[in-house]
């Protein structure tokens, strides 16, 4: 028996897991329409690569990952794309986001798929690209793209691989059912992970002791594999990444670091199975096991559900009684959120659909003032001070919230659960967290704006200085010119002007050439006029015309005289 450590805090809410485990994993008929959101994971939403009217086959890629931290999305069944538009999605905001709608053709016909039978002889990078292509995102709830998590880089060698089979939240039994029925596939998946991560020394499966059947199902498969199955006492929330690492290894993950920083990788057991399906069978992530439970459903069990199946379709097949139902929750009662519409689809991270009756999970009582009982501090698994955080959160004191490590809060809801005053503590923390993040983003933007503003000011100042310098230089030049000319009396100015014209005058040789040219051109003109007059008198031209021509001739002769006179004057 391997040693385990005990985390601080934690609570023991009623488990309510047995009702959904009475039957094996079932399957649902394919819904008529599937709505597949493009943002089902942490990171940038995928970019649709199909358009309305396209025919797609089951497993065909319908959206490409946008950047590194993103995941591809595939068609869960064959059919036609009937819409690419914003629809309500599984998000606490109840807002719409871009989705692809597929109208099923009922044939469920697979695209050509091929798996790898001997992954040991395939390079880890090739396996990682298969995982990227298969669009696998963490199926425990956060939805972090698996290929990013499994590629920590050379600087961070991994010596411990932790498989998270804790499933600590009440009602949820998706992982439990998966282990019971598909233990073989899970172990194969762990083999693939271990190969990708360079065969870490320690491979641990962490599981709570409230799943004896699952432990029994796994035990025969881990013989001689080097995998350690570690069971530990049930407590909520043992399944948080930081908590599980502490329980299994006794190491605390420092604030603000990821497990890879201390040589660990923590993967949900459902993700492990999905990776096996992708690598060995060549099937992308298009379906998952989801628990459908709660008193408002007559049938409580686990289903293999296609991603994109509307919740309404799932509930319809479970004899859902909307009269008894207080609200439909996606996820568990501790960390889940109420859905605003039953048309919201199942996504990669949906491990549970909870439809409780009003008696089962009553509406929240109104919050009352804090009585400083300190029960929240005892329940906090991250050893934070929930009460202090509440005051600072209400006062919007971001500095103190951060110095009290608000960002180490895993939002497990244990503090709200124990609070005798029904204060929705987690909601306060979530709100403060998003406030702080927004303030930080704004700070970055305002710093950028300041920098640009200051740069612009500097540039304008510089330009102004340059202009000023030019002006000064001109003034200086004018002053100097004044100084050289000395006193500026009228006579001086006239003399200066005469000097300028003298400077402009052409040399005598040029002048002579010019005059000679004028004389010769005048001679030519006289000659031409004489010719014209001769032809006119020889022909039968009118008197008038002859008069005009003789006048032109005499004019040309006068000009020639003038030019000759000027030339003679110059030659003197």
């Amino acid at each position, binding site marked *: 028996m391997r040693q385990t450590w005990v985390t601080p805090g934690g609570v023991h809410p009623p488990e309510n897991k047995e009702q959904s485990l009475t039957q094996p994993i079932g399957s649902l008929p394919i819904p008529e329409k599937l709505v597949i959101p493009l943002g089902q994971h942490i990171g940038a939403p995928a970019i649709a690569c199909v358009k309305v009217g396209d025919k797609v086959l089951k497993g065909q890629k319908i959206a490409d990952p946008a950047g590194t931290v993103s995941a591809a999305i595939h068609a869960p069944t064959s059919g036609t794309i009937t819409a690419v538009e914003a629809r309500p999605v599984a998000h606490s905001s109840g807002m719409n986001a871009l989705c692809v709608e597929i109208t099923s053709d009922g044939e469920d016909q697979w695209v050509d798929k091929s798996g790898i039978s001997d992954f040991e002889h395939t390079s880890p990078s090739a396996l990682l690209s298969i995982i990227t292509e298969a669009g696998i995102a963490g199926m425990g709830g956060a939805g972090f793209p698996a290929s990013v998590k499994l590629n920590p880089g050379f600087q961070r060698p991994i010596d411990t691989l932790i498989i998270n089979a804790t499933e600590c939240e009440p009602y949820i039994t998706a992982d439990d059912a998966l282990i019971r029925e598909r233990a073989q596939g899970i172990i194969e998946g762990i083999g693939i992970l271990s190969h990708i991560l360079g065969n870490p020394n320690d491979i641990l499966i962490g599981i709570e002791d409230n799943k004896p059947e699952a432990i029994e199902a796994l035990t025969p498969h881990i013989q001689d594999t080097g995998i350690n199955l570690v069971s530990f006492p049930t407590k909520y929330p043992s399944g948080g990444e930081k908590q599980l690492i502490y329980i299994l290894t006794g190491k605390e993950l420092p604030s603000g670091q990821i497990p890879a920083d201390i040589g660990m990788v923590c993967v949900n057991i459902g993700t492990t199975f999905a990776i096996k399906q992708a690598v060995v069978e060549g099937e992308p992530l298009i379906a998952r096991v989801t628990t459908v439970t709660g008193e408002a459903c007559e049938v409580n069990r686990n289903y293999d559900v296609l991603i994109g199946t509307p919740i309404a379709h799932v509930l319809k097949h479970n004899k859902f009684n909307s009269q008894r139902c207080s609200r439909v*929750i996606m996820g568990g009662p*501790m960390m889940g959120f109420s859905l605003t519409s039953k048309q919201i689809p199942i996504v990669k991270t949906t491990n549970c659909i909870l439809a409780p009756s009003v008696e089962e999970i009553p509406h929240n009582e109104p919050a009352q*003032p804090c009585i400083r009982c300190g029960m929240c501090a005892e329940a906090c698994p991250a050893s934070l001070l929930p009460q202090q955080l509440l005051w600072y*959160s209400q006062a919007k004191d971001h500095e103190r919230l951060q110095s009290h490590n608000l960002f180490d809060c895993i939002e497990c809801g244990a503090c709200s659960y124990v609070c005798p005053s029904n204060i929705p503590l987690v*909601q306060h923390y979530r709100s403060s967290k*998003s406030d702080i993040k927004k303030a930080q983003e704004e700070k970055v933007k305002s710093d950028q704006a300041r920098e640009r503003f200051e740069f612009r*000011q500097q540039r304008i100042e510089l330009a102004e200085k340059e202009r000023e310098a030019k002006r000064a230089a001109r003034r200086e030049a004018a002053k100097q010119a004044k100084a050289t000319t000395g006193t500026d009396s009228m006579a001086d100015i006239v003399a200066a002007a005469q000097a300028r014209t003298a400077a402009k005058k052409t040399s005598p040789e040029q002048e002579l050439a010019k005059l000679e040219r004028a004389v010769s051109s005048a001679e030519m003109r006289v000659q031409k006029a004489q010719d014209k007059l001769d032809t006119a008198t020889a022909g039968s031209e009118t008197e008038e015309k002859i008069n005009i021509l003789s006048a032109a001739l005499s004019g040309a002769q006068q000009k020639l005289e003038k030019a000759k006179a000027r030339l003679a004057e110059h030659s003197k």
Partner: protein
Amino acid sequence: MLDFIIQQPIIAALVALAGLGILFGALLGFAAEKFKIEGDPVIDQIDELLPQTQCGQCGFPGCRPYAESIADGDEINKCPPGGQSTINAIASLLDVPAPELDQEHGQEAEVKSVAYIREDECIGCTKCIQACPVDAILGAAKLMHTVIVDECTGCDLCVEPCPVDCIDMIPVETGIKQWQWPAPPLPNGLIATDKTHSDSNHEDAA
């Protein structure tokens, strides 16, 4: 030396004290020169808190001049883009009571907006480029201009100079990524049973 101290204790004490005074005076003088702080650090701190839209709604040509004026004792409630949160932050920095926003200078916008140029109407006069305090408008004379949306602070200083009115202030789209958790209502001191279930919130299962 010792004899002098014993014989003239008062004079010796005075001399010693005067000597110490001169020594520490020199030390302080040296430190004041050596560790002199350029400018007023309070101005920088206030400037850090201002939103840097450079919009001039406060009546100063930019955020820094307003920060300087605040350091000189001006009112701290003249910044509509910063809104109440900026006023509170400056108030807590300066340790003064936080007043409400002075409506004379404008109202706090609920949604941030940025400028958009209707590009086919732009005549390329560069007037908006000259007006933009953060160089967020790109273009040249007689060529179409466009706003670099990521750099626009939403100050709307470019709207007024445009001779063809082709600049619009459009609210920034908020999608699922920008969504923020709302803060839960504060406990109002009611007795729990006075409240009906219908008006209790339906948010989370706890």
